[in-house]
């Protein structure tokens, strides 16, 4: 598989940038639109380099994200494992979708992730979040094609 020969450096750098983008403060009104960057980048690498990124890697990334964002230890780990499992399960199909359909699949993944996170928080006794929580997955869907093209361009550029 020639595609998965991308440098490991790019993988870690892209995840680091995703973590930073997640921390970036947005103006008060825009904060609810902040997409789940780590998940988007993780989905890309699951599609492109499944021999490097598996459930174990998703778990570790989730634990790091939990530490960085101060969430319950294991919360994002759980969310990312579920995403990783679904992506790997349908990888053969997802990989050959056109970008627009892939974006729809990403929307589905992110919506499902929201359901999982609401479930986790409800268990933790945090109560139901406001309806605006559903906006971020839409932003994630709109961003997906650009993110995919960008990462693809960078990784092919690095390989030359």
């Amino acid at each position, binding site marked *: 598989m020639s595609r998965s020969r991308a440098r490991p450096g790019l993988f870690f750098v892209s995840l680091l940038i995703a*973590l*930073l983008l997640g*921390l*970036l*403060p*947005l103006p*008060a009104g825009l*904060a*609810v639109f*902040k997409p789940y960057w780590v998940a988007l980048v993780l989905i890309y690498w699951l599609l492109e380099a*499944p021999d490097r990124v*598996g*459930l*174990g890697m998703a*778990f570790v990334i*989730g*634990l790091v994200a939990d*530490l*960085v*964002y*101060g*969430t*319950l*230890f*294991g*919360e994002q*780990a*759980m969310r990312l*494992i*579920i995403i990783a*499992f679904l992506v*790997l*399960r349908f*990888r*053969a199909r997802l990989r050959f979708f056109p970008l627009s359909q892939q974006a729809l699949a990403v929307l589905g993944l992110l919506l499902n992730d929201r359901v999982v996170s609401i479930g*986790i928080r409800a268990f*933790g*006794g*945090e*109560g*139901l*979040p*406001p309806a605006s*929580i559903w906006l971020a997955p839409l932003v994630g869907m709109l961003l997906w094609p650009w993110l995919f093209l960008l990462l693809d361009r960078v990784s092919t550029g690095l390989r030359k």
Partner: protein
Amino acid sequence: MAYDSSAGGPSFAEGGYGALRLLAYLTVAVMLMVADHRGGYLTQVRTWLTALNEPLYRAAALPVVALRSLRDSVISRGVLVDERDRLNAEMLVARAQLARMDELQRENTRLRELMGSSRGLAMRVQLAHLADLDLDPFRHRIVLDQGSRQGVREGLAIIDAKGLVGQIVAVAPLRATGMLISDASHAVPVQVQRSGLRTIAYGTGEVDRLVVPNIPQSADVREGDLLLTSGMGGGFPAGLQVARIVRLLPDDTRLFVVAEAEPVAALDRSGEVLLVWVPEPELDVGPPHASQTTEDAPVDGAPSP
């Protein structure tokens, strides 16, 4: 056999990512969450590891810091002079009010001493900046740029110029995390300023709304009433503004009233906040200690000489 190929067949084992591994990881994740949520077994590990976040937090704040310094360097002199004049005027007014407040406070302390009340209004404050970070817009947490090295500890009240913002819930050496009063798991003992009615205000998960449930029908509460911290429980100092009541509704049982209130402080974004230390109460609160009861007043039924 059609059944065979659909379950446990090659498509299921594709890449070796079976449901078993998923289950194993999910179990570990759940165990971690329970350990973190319940016992707090991981608190120490966490405090330790959060120190590693520091460079990441620094890096994330860079764009905002850069923007701010750019704005500071290109801002015109005229704007600065205007701002200085305005601030000077505001300070003058504030000083005058403070002088009057000082007098009132002295009088108040004297009266309280006469009454033997321990509920103090005195407090010590320290300025802290909000780190330019956004952990999760739905979690109602803020990160401050001061930690245990600056003497911050868990449970301190956070206020801004207008009122109560929240309290410190986690402390790292250089950072502290605060929970806003609007968080769904936050509650603060309050008192209606006008009537003195004591109750508790709960967060709702929405930044502009608190609820005060279980108010008796006969209680003296109106729309527009201001809620102050009551100082009960010792967590928050007394007399800080918390919220203003905007609506009164009957609850599901129709026996009590639920009040909706709007926080007074700018919860969604304020650059600087104050951390408040409450002095230890001099008098004992709560039930008497066992040693006291035996020494001072013999318990009923105890053999008396």
